[in-house]
């Protein structure tokens, strides 16, 4: 199991590096082509924009792995460690289900586009470009779910040890 997770992590990281690398190279080539040779490839611009979508969503899945999503931390400072853990459980559950619902409905949309054979620029099937949405939200949702289990487990453990020391 842990090797599957490690492989997934490595896959995400490598894809990020690969996509960013190709973004830099292709965007620069396009400018050189246009300014020096007065030409350009029509499919590059839409492809660059799709790469940005993929970069953003993959970056967001990695951010979920490392608790780096933007959040407001105002009230938790005032709460006890126990309450924070319990809250974390609730909030991670909530986040998990929001993401999983988006992933589920996204997958339905991608499937429809697949069945209807919808194509994007230069004949690339649209579903291939779109599929990153259900995949990334699915992974993010699962990550929140696992993190909530973790928080719940820690809360339970603290709760038990405190009960033991009280009695």
């Amino acid at each position: 199991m842990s090797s599957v997770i490690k492989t997934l992590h490595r896959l995400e990281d490598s894809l990020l590096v690969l996509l960013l690398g190709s973004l830099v190279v292709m965007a620069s080539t396009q400018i050189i082509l246009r300014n020096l040779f007065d030409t350009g490839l029509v499919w590059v611009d839409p492809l660059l924009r799709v790469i940005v979508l993929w970069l953003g969503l993959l970056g967001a899945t990695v951010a979920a792995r490392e608790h780096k999503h933007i959040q407001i931390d105002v009230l938790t400072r005032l709460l006890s460690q126990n309450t924070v853990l319990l809250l974390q459980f609730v909030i991670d559950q909530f986040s998990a289900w929001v993401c999983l619902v988006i992933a589920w409905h996204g997958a339905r949309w991608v499937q429809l586009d697949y069945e209807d054979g919808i194509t994007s620029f230069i004949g690339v099937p649209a579903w291939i470009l779109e599929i990153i949405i259900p995949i990334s939200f699915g992974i993010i949702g699962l990550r929140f779910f696992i993190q909530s289990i973790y928080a719940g487990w820690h809360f339970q453990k603290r709760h038990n040890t405190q009960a033991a020391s009280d009695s």
Partner: protein
Amino acid sequence: MSLTTPLLLILALLRTPLFVVIAASAMLGFYSEEVDLSVISIEIYRLADMSVLVAIPLFTFAGYLLGESQASTRLLNISNSLLGWMPGGLAIVAIFACAMFTAFTGASGITIIALGALLYPALKQSGYNEKFNLGLLTSSGSLGLLFAPSLPLILYGVVAQQMSLEEPVGIDQLFLAGIFPGLLMLVMLAIYSMMQPGISSQHEKFDRRVALAALLAAKWEIPLPILILGGIYGGYFAVSEAAAVTALYVLIVEVFILREITLKNLPVIMRDSMVLVGGIMIIIGVSLASTNYLIDAEIPTRLFEWTQQHIGDRLTFLILLNLFLLVLGMMLDIFSALVIFVPIILPIAIGYDIHPVHLGIIFLANMQLGYFTPPVGMNLFIASYRFDKPVMTLYKATIPFFLILLVAVLIITYWPALSLSLPAL
């Protein structure tokens, strides 16, 4: 307004990731109107329709590369050799260097981490008092937000362009509009630094050889602003293309010419920069959905009618706007504030005859204050961690800087020409 709105607000304040809160509000809205929820994914896919967004990963990557290289030291040396002779020299050096660095790296607190470490001991040695140093460095961490190519400036343009205004907001216009207001802030802080007691004796003589050496050391980085601004206003490339050129240029310089970043480290930097981009892009994505719902439900129109009824004149509106944005800046990071509130505020502001470009500058100038406004301004915590001081000490140290910049924000708000005269040329 139902029960769900306050509930979501509480969840947001309890550390729920903001993109989840925004997505949930959009989903609830569409659900109540019986719209198929795959609409959320379809809206997120619109991220791939916006060519300006290409600028975000590219500028962020370039900023991360600069942050990891020795560029900060070189920038400091140049500023010191050129400005160090003035009374209050080192403080002025700090102000200008921080602003330049923030413009390029985005106001993610990296300025305090990278430059603070160098400037804090230096300021102390030159005899500035501790409180002044801490206040200066903490408030300088968000200085430079108004200068190109800062990410929040670009993001404001992105959001405003989504709104199909009569008069589209160009990012190139925003870049120009930020110059004078940004300079105003720098100059006001510089004057305050000069007035510090016992400082006038603490300055070095201008040395042409030292200045030349510092300039020469940074010969690869100096062309960057010229490349970006010259390229855009010379009509050679669009903003997203300028970002590509910048990323490629910085990559070649720092990795292959100066070799301050090893090839082994490069993938790590690429990945880390994209994690930040991911955090921003997913918020933009889900807010495309929530904004669409807001417009469907005619919420901006209703808010607009409400404000028109209750707030008669432009001046009152601006005062309330300033207050609102100050509070917003305390609670919310700049990226989320932009994507959530610009779609709501912009149509209202236009109704009071406020130019969209001017509104952008007002918005960002206000948010800049929020970075170090207690109790939750992000830079207060970064500075507290970096300088190993209690947050309370920093609250007190930043008060004079807050007041000075507040005056600057008011001038920027009530004097539109300061922002609008350059783009109008």
